[in-house]
């Protein structure tokens, strides 16, 4: 897909989180067996409570992949001083399998945006071989670029993102009008 039409570029995921890369491995992310993530779709916090099924492509069982899930708009898109907030980190995922076959380095934390519409980004890296990846000390202010450099992961091989905003049931008027 030409750069200017790539949703990752238009949505500024490439820029804020990632550098330009060529997608070469398929990655499917499905929540609740019914909501597949496509770029820039919107999911509600209630739909993403549990970790999704992640299907990693590639053609070799021996290749290992690392999955990173971050929120670059924490705590709010207008003031992202916690960019990026790390929600999930799974390493050593064998090719052609899923995230549940990898090692969960940082457990899945369901995104609960407080203000604004947040982008939640999934990034897949191909590891050079099986390696030990350590959890950072804290989830906020994670930097995917630095992380990739630290573990020599190179550019991503796949990425996708969805939007999520706070689910509001107004107690005042009780109409439950979504914000």
């Amino acid at each position, binding site marked *: 897909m030409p750069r200017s*039409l790539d949703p990752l570029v238009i*949505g*500024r995921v490439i*820029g804020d989180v990632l550098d330009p890369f060529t997608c070469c491995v398929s990655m499917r992310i499905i929540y609740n067996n019914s909501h597949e993530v496509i770029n820039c779709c919107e999911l509600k916090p209630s739909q993403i409570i549990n970790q999704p099924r992640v299907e990693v492509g590639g053609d070799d069982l021996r290749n290992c992949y690392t999955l990173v899930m971050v929120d670059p708009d924490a705590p709010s898109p*207008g003031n992202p001083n916690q960019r990026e907030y790390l929600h999930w980190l799974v390493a050593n995922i064998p090719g052609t399998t899923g995230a549940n076959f990898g090692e969960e380095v940082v457990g899945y934390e369901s995104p609960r945006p407080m203000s*604004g*519409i947040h982008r939640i980004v999934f990034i897949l890296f191909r590891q050079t071989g099986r390696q030990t990846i350590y959890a950072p000390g804290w989830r906020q202010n994670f930097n995917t670029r630095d992380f990739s450099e630290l573990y020599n992961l190179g550019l991503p091989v796949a990425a996708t993102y969805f939007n999520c905003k706070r689910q509001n049931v107004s107690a005042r008027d009780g109409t439950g009008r979504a914000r």
Partner: protein
Amino acid sequence: MASSKVVSTNPDLPRDSSISPICSLLSDLNPTSMDDLLKSITPAAKTVDDVWKEIVGGAAAHPAANDDTLQMTLEDFLTKAGAVREEDVRGGGGGGGPSSLPFPLPEGSSSSVEPFGNGVAPSPSVHKGKRRAVEEPVDKATLQKQRRMIKNRESAARSRERKQAYTSELEFLVHQLEQENARLLNEEADMRRQRKKQLVECIIPIEVMSKPKKKLRRVNSAPSSL
């Protein structure tokens, strides 16, 4: 800081309208001609256009990059503008500096700004109301309004981006699915043709082997010979 961010990141604003607030702002405070003013502000023979070109050029080269650097460039420029102009007006006054920026900063110290405002005593001629308010950052309400306007603009820009990105993604998916669909239909048609051929080949032997015609034979009745 937020104000400069708008000017640098909003691609929808044509260059002219982005520059004019700054230019009109500057011209409001000093009744000298625009060129003189600009020359005094940027003694290093750099005009507004040059600096602006740098900013835009920087933005074009790194479209999604560092808003921070762009902010600083514009702020620096305004700092220079503020500092130099103030010196011009007050005859080399010592105070001010960055804190007496005419452009409102959220943490602008009002005390150092006031003398600046009095010293300049802008000629109350043909101003748009908005420009005047900007010159008096002591007015917190206007500051807040400005900030809110900027945030809203950013939010609107993000919303447009989202819409564009989603449309783009859908278009791509449609294209992909159409191709896959065409491919699968072709495959199915092919397989059907193959199967039909196979069946036709098998049918012929069956047709050749026809059952011998059954001849009627009397079994339970006697021949009629009357």
